[in-house]
């Protein structure tokens, strides 16, 4: 007789037990009597939930089926032109923010981008003229509205408040609720925050939607706050974090220091308490203590254990190894009286020894429970979150500041970028599946962020990479272009021959090796004055003597005159004086040479009065400064700071840029259809799409529809 081994005996026992359990369950389920028909709340929950789900689904579907003919008729009556004159059934626009035509051409030539090569060979590849200035919010606003910035009102990320010379976010204005109730020490908000979009003009998908053409629009910049239209839209660049900023990371550390990050992040102390460490994530201002400036905080605990740590935040615990990111973690900022703000963030365990350091991403608006609307309809962000899990909602989701400040290293930053990119890809392919007819537009930011941060390894002699041997430099940007090419290949497999595929970028890229402090130049050349005894200013023109200042610069490319009647302490008279000052500045700045390298730092200065046309030109700067290749506005100059040096090396990881002379950084245009125009511009995309769908072009558009041969190739 064979003796069973221990394992066999245990397995056999398990099998027997499983059999008995199954037999009992089977008996009970097959011959249910009154009393055992209900086996407790567990079964009840399952049955009820399933029934409820199916019931709701049935109701939804029944509604869709029953009303479909009526809706179809209504659509037919209202928009009987939908698709009737359309040359295409579907347009797929892939926006690769910052994809550079020269780099694309080079990699195609080296055989590294087979899908883009196919598009170029069989369809179209052109340089796509960008906007003045070549900045993403400006260019994408022009892309969607088909008009110049004078008509859509976006000139930079930041605008200048002429009353106080301080910056404001140019795309959206968020204020507290209109009405509040004062209750003792509390100020209770009555209603939701007021969000006002500052971008003007009508995105072309609104025209398409009105005509009955369905549109899925994903993460196109400057679509926050989302506007109503017949389609779905997820907002992109310019969506704030929960603090209301464009992204504030947090470094929790046991290192005692008073150093502050230049921008984009805060240091938070970690306190030891026995074997546990405690810290917190700074949140939004307490809405119940309006004007006090008191921030809400979400505490978390860290329990180190060898090379990993157990982190507990808002009741959720997870273990992280050093060098690992967490999943998206929900965090709740409690304000009292039942008020709270909810967001999501990711933790990155930077080190545990000798000091403990945890990086926390900016707290993103939770797409499953958005405190601010980030999609149209609101349920679209919820739908995506339920389908794919939580995802980054912040406009500038890739934390370039954290890499700039050396809080994250290259690999941690890339992991964050490609994590977000993968989410975006999933959204795109879902939109492709859901939009068999109509428009599907999706913008990927990874191309922009990675090129900004890793151009140093591409440049021959970038100051920020001089300590890295040439053969040690990673091929990050080449890898990025390969990934994008692979994505295009997968999209090409999803489309038929009545689908237009367009791959575009808003601008190209150049090296950013040298910084130009234009405020310093204005100061040294007598256009900007400091208060007596001062040789430098603080941020945002602290110590600037406005009574003697004729010009100043803020933001990336805008130069402003201190105009009488417009600026609060303006001294330049509008008209002849202003015009001659502009001309004088243009003459002096155009061709400005960097004495250290002998290269031209500024290759063009453009008068906004002649560059723009439209009702919002008065909000534009007076001049747009076009920096030469390798140059850009200095970090200090952007923040309204006057330094003693005009030119200096850029030592930051942020080493590539596009805020230069727009003629130097056109974007790309690839298409599976032949496009005849030799010099297409981003402003032409909207009219071209409208024309291809057979819609009349609104008269105010500045762009011209391209001649597109609507027979696809390949």
């Amino acid at each position, binding site marked *: 007789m064979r003796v069973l081994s221990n394992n066999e005996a245990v397995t056999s026992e398990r099998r027997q037990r499983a059999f008995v359990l199954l037999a009992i369950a089977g008996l009970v389920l097959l011959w249910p009597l009154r009393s055992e028909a209900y086996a407790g709340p567990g079964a009840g929950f*399952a049955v009820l939930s399933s029934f409820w789900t199916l019931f709701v689904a049935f109701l939804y579907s029944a509604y869709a*089926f029953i009303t479909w003919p009526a809706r179809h008729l209504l*659509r037919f009556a209202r928009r009987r032109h939908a698709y009737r004159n359309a040359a295409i059934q579907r347009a797929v626009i892939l926006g690769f923010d910052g994809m550079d035509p020269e780099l694309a051409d080079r990699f195609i030539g080296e055989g590294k981008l087979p899908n883009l090569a196919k598009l170029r060979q069989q369809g179209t590849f052109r340089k796509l003229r960008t906007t003045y200035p070549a900045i993403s919010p400006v260019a994408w606003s022009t892309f969607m509205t088909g008009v110049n910035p004078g008509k859509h009102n976006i000139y930079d990320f930041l605008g200048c408040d002429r009353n106080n010379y301080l910056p404001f976010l140019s795309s959206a204005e968020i204020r507290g609720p209109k009405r509040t109730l004062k209750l003792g020490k509390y100020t209770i908000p009555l209603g939701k925050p007021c969000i006002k979009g500052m971008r003007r003009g009508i995105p072309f998908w609104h025209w398409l939607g009105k005509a009955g053409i369905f549109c899925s629009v994903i993460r196109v910049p400057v679509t926050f706050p989302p506007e109503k239209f017949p389609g779905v839209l997820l907002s992109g660049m310019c969506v704030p974090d929960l603090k209301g900023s464009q992204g504030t990371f947090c470094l929790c550390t046991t290192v005692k220091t008073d150093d502050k990050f230049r921008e984009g992040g805060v240091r938070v102390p970690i306190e030891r308490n026995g074997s546990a460490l405690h810290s917190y994530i700074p949140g939004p201002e307490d809405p119940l203590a309006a004007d006090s400036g008191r921030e809400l905080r979400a505490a978390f605990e860290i329990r180190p254990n060898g090379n990993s740590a157990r982190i507990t935040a808002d009741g959720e615990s997870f273990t992280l190894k050093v060098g690992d990111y967490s999943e998206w973690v929900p965090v709740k900022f409690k304000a009292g009286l039942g008020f709270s703000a909810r967001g999501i963030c990711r933790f990155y365990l930077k080190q545990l020894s000798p000091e403990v350091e945890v990086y926390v991403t900016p707290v993103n608006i939770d797409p499953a429970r958005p405190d601010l609307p980030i999609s149209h309809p609101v349920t679209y962000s919820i739908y995506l979150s339920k389908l794919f899990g939580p995802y980054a909602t912040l406009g500038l989701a890739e934390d370039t500041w954290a890499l700039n400040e050396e809080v994250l290293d290259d690999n941690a930053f890339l992991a964050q970028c490609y994590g977000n990119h993968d989410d975006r890809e999933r959204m795109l392919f879902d939109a492709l599946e859901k939009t068999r007819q109509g428009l599907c537009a999706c913008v990927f930011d990874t191309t922009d962020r990675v090129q900004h941060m890793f151009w140093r390894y591409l440049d021959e002699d970038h100051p920020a990479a001089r300590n890295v041997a040439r053969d040690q430099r990673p091929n990050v940007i080449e890898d990025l272009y390969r990934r994008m090419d692979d994505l295009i290949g997968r999209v090409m497999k999803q489309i038929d021959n009545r689908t237009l595929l367009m791959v575009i970028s808003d601008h190209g890229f150049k090296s950013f090796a040298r910084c130009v402090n234009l405020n310093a130049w204005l100061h040294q050349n007598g256009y900007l004055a400091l208060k007596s005894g001062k040789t430098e200013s603080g941020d945002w023109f602290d110590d600037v003597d406005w009574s003697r200042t004729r010009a100043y610069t803020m933001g990336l490319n805008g130069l402003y005159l201190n105009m009488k009647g417009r600026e609060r302490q303006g001294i330049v008279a509008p008209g002849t004086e202003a015009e001659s000052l502009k001309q004088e500045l243009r003459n002096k700045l155009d061709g400005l040479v960097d004495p250290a390298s002998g290269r031209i730092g500024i290759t063009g200065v453009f008068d906004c009065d002649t560059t723009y046309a439209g009702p919002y030109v008065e909000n534009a700067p007076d001049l747009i400064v076009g920096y030469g290749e390798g140059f850009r506005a200095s970090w200090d100059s952007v923040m309204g700071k006057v330094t003693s040096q005009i030119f200096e090396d850029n030592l930051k990881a942020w080493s590539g840029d596009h805020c230069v002379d727009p003629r130097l950084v056109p974007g790309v245009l690839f298409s599976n259809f032949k496009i005849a125009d030799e010099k297409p511009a981003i402003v032409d995309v909207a009219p071209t799409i409208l024309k291809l769908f057979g819609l009349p072009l609104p008269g105010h558009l500045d762009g011209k529809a391209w001649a597109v041969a609507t027979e696809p190739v390949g």
Partner: protein
Amino acid sequence: MAIPTGINSASCVVLPGVHGFNLPFLIVLLISVVIGFLMVIVFRYTSDQKAIHKVKDQLKAHLLAVRLFQDQLPVVLKSYGRILRCTGRYLLLAFRPLLFVIIPMIVLIVQLDRYLGFAAVNSGQAFLVKAQASGVDALNDISLLLPPGMRTTAPAVHAPASHEVIWRVVADDGGAYDINVDIAGQKLAKTVVVSSGLARISPVRLREHFWQRMLESGESALPSNSPIESVEVSYPLRDISFLGYEWNWIWLFFVLSLAAGFAFKTVLGIEI
């Protein structure tokens, strides 16, 4: 209260009715809350919480898709198919915890059903006693022996088609009685509870039928060589008043334990 002769006191617990209180309801409420709590705890530790969370999210997503893309019939149809698939998966995931709780729950429910499923007969109230034989030949040999305090109010009715003999009986006083069905000298006892309170009740005594005995009878089996298959007492079904309706206890338990479970799962953050 004097205990009449023939009363079986061992197997019978009688809870007197409390004036002004709906005792059966209070018992159901208490048990529902406790069971609701225990069940969500069991569900938490025996289910794949992550998978349940995910599949529920998927369900919600596909529901939203039906709404978001309602003008596109192919999308609606596809989403509906996915909803069905996710529902199946969800039921599958909920089945595992069900395996853990099903046996204790059945035992508990069977025991509760003894107290809450039927009401005892009241003194002076007529009720039926039914003896079922295995063949029609035995019917003429069956008689009913009643303890003092109980009497028949009509002659026995023979139903040859169903092999049954039926008596109508009345008890004069409350208590738990043993009545005997006599067949050819073999006496088969059956407990009868006469009370206005809450009592443990076994409506039937059975021969063989193991599962039915486990689930329905609270008494030992009849001898296997007996020609009698069952002796049954026609207790009235108990209804419990709640929110202006008369409820069978199991439905009330279903509703209340679900409500308690939902409340606890929210408080405890458990995915169900």
